[in-house]
């Protein structure tokens, strides 16, 4: 019994290690890609699967877009000098604001409480 346990523990530990290393490689790859960057791509503002806005930030005049969540609450999206960020939000966690400027190839900006996502077109 003892022997059987150690074997299954070892399998479990290896499984964890594989998942960890695989995710680490994927994350590193994503960060590396996001540094390279490309220009002339389209940004989408998506709420619950519905595309509310699409625009090329490089060719968009500086402006602010206020988005109201279906359950109440707002996010203010600022486009300035070709860069996009959430400048203000009344969600509890403020993660969308802290995410900063939307990076190409990087992670999309997400406001889970307001079911909102801002990403570059795939």
């Amino acid at each position, binding site marked *: 019994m003892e022997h059987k*346990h150690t074997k*299954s*523990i070892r399998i*479990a*530990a290896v499984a*964890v290690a594989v*998942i*960890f290393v*695989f*995710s*680490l490689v*994927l*994350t590193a790859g*994503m960060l590396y890609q996001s540094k390279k960057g490309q220009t002339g791509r389209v940004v989408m503002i*998506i709420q*619950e*699967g*519905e595309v509310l806005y699409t625009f090329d930030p490089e060719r968009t005049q500086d402006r602010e877009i206020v988005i109201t969540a279906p*359950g109440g609450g707002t996010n203010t999206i600022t486009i300035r000098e070709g860069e996009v960020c959430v400048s203000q939000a009344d*969600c*509890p*966690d*403020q*993660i969308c604001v*802290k*995410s*900063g400027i939307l990076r190409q190839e990087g*992670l*999309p900006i*997400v406001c*889970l*409480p*307001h*079911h*909102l*996502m801002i*990403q570059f077109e*795939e």
Partner: protein
Amino acid sequence: MSTKKLTQLSLLTAAALVLYVIEMQLPTLIPVPGVKLGLANIITVVAIYRFRFSETVLLVGVRIFLGAVFAGGMSALIFSASGAILSLLGMGLLKKIIPAGYLPLSSVFGAILHNVGQVGAAVWVLKSPGVLAYLPVLLVSGCITGFFTGICAQMVQKRLNCEKRLK
């Protein structure tokens, strides 16, 4: 359910809730939705090995609901719930394979499944697969925080067992 067990479960639920509320007060170091320490899961891991599965589900269910009432807001409920369901099922099954002396291992599995559940819920709520890009980052952080909470759970378990011996 005996009064003793009810009391034990209530105490652990309260402890988990306190941990949850304390964690909400900590500043977010990494602004990625879903990345967090998950201190309350220390209690979940302990409970998995201490009580029956249904009792643990009860404990976690009450903690998540009250946590949302006190601090998280109802919008966070669906993400924590979907993560919890997956991780509870996984840890409940793994209990048969991983003995009580290896809580960090079980906890890491719980964290991984929690992240998968969370991202799944996010895809469902946002109705777009773009959030899947978050899964690798969440898994890396989940493995690390899961290991940490697992170590804490091991220490809590040791102390609870001490209590038993004293009686």
